């Protein structure tokens, strides 16, 4: 019977490759393979270039007889990083990390909850979004002097500022992700009798996950910015405070070392969320 000839595998697969242009998971393992191979090569060349740039910088500083207080030599920064790490940098690093994560956890929990709330009760978002926009657009560092008057010079004002910097970012991105969920997918779930909670867990949340991860990434970067900025304003703690301290003493190699630590922290945040995204949301490639 003609109807038996259904397994149109070869022509079908050709059309599948055409369909892959938009969203949807392409062969995940293959892409991961390609990326890794490419990545190794790229990582090698990126590292090589970085070495060349740093070496060049070192020699330029030697040839031009630039004083350390004007621009510290890369070797001096690296030496300071290794020798002074336990005494000068470890403690402020832990202080920054602590406030950062505390702020991130509080901010993102509130942000994600608000996103869920405005998704389930769409009428609410016209009341909430003005404040969210204000919070996103205002640099939260600006609040630090005020918060310090209220809460003292401990961790509290900085954790609040970091929460206010990360939360709205997580909220805006998550809410957008939830809202963008394909209406037909929701209809599909409803046609099977899904409750609002099931729709959320099985359809909206996984659909929004790539956006939520992006929200966390951007929020974290804003959070780090706020953390370091707030430490520079006052309080005598953390990496930001060390930046002010070393620059006021014109200890530029130590200043450079702290800068390298802050930058590494930022790149670490970025890499972590890129990794999470590839792991949990690879279908959205």
């Amino acid at each position: 019977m003609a109807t038996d000839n259904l397994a149109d595998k070869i022509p079908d697969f050709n059309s599948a490759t055409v369909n892959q242009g938009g969203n949807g998971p392409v062969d995940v393992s293959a892409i991961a393979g390609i990326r890794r191979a490419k990545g190794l090569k790229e990582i090698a060349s990126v590292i090589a270039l970085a070495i060349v740039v740093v070496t060049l910088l070192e020699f330029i500083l030697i040839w031009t007889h630039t004083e350390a207080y004007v621009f510290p030599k890369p070797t001096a920064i690296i030496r300071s990083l290794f020798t002074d790490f336990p005494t000068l940098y470890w403690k402020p690093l832990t202080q920054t990390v602590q406030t950062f994560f505390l702020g991130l956890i509080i901010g993102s929990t509130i942000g994600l909850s608000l996103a869920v709330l405005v998704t389930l009760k769409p009428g609410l978002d016209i009341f909430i979004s003005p404040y969210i926009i204000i919070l996103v657009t205002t640099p939260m560092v600006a609040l630090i002097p005020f918060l310090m008057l209220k809460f003292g010079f401990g961790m509290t004002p900085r954790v609040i500022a970091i929460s206010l910097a990360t939360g709205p970012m997580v909220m805006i991105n998550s809410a957008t992700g939830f809202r963008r969920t394909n209406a037909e997918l929701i209809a599909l779930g409803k046609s099977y009798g899904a409750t609002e909670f099931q729709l959320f867990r099985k359809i909206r949340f996984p659909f929004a996950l790539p956006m939520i991860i992006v929200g966390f990434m951007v929020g974290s970067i804003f959070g780090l910015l706020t953390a370091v900025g707030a430490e520079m304003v006052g309080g005598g703690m953390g990496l930001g405070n060390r930046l002010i301290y070393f620059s006021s003493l014109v200890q530029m190699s130590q200043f450079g070392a702290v800068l390298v630590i802050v930058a590494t922290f930022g790149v670490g945040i970025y890499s972590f969320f890129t990794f999470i995204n590839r792991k949990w949301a690879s279908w959205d490639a």
Partner: protein
Amino acid sequence: MAQATRIQITDVSKIYQTETKTVEAVKNFTESVKDGEFVCVVGASGCGKTTLLWCLSGLHPATSGTVHIDGELLTKPLPDRIGMVFQDSNLLPWRTLIENIELPFQIKKKAVNRKLVDELLDVAGLKGFENSYPGELSGGMKQRGSIVRALAQDPEVLLMDEPFGALDAFTREEMNLFLLKVWERTRKTIVFVTHSISEAIFLADRVWVMSPRPGRLSRIVDVDFPRPRDIDLQFEPKFIEILKSIREDVEGSKSGKGQ
């Protein structure tokens, strides 16, 4: 093969209210579908055929009039009795094919009917693709997967909203044959919306022709070609004759409204 009435549509109207205007998508629609019957709904785009189907699904209630399924007034989706197939396969891209087929079972908190799922996958030619992600499947395979997902719930009624509209002509023919094969086995009651008149005639026992603005039932065509039907049916003079007459109706309803 005339049996009990499965779906009774009585004076159904659906009005959409937008900020600027009111659209009468469906007006005073009355008809019934018998148990095990295959009905296709055709009409120009915007004639309300999809709206009608959504009214039958319980997802978008009618503005006025009633829909009864097996004599019971429809007020909300009936997940155990009505299955929906959409224009897009609507497979969740983060789930494998089999996980997608299992989704309705999970929502209903029921054990997966392995035997039925296996049988359906076999008929659909999807054996061996259970662990593929939708992005790895062709358009035809995805749509067959979504039909398997609906049929695995063993619904009495299958509502299909232009399910093959996005597929190319050859895949579409194969899908039609696949659907007839499944239907001849299971004898579900099917309401199938399409804008392809030949597809409608090829599949249906009866074709409902709708005219737009407001969407009304303008004509019912009985299609009594014997089953099982072969793809060559579409070249028979009688087939072409029906095709032409429905086509004139659909065209006429469009130009008549000053399009």
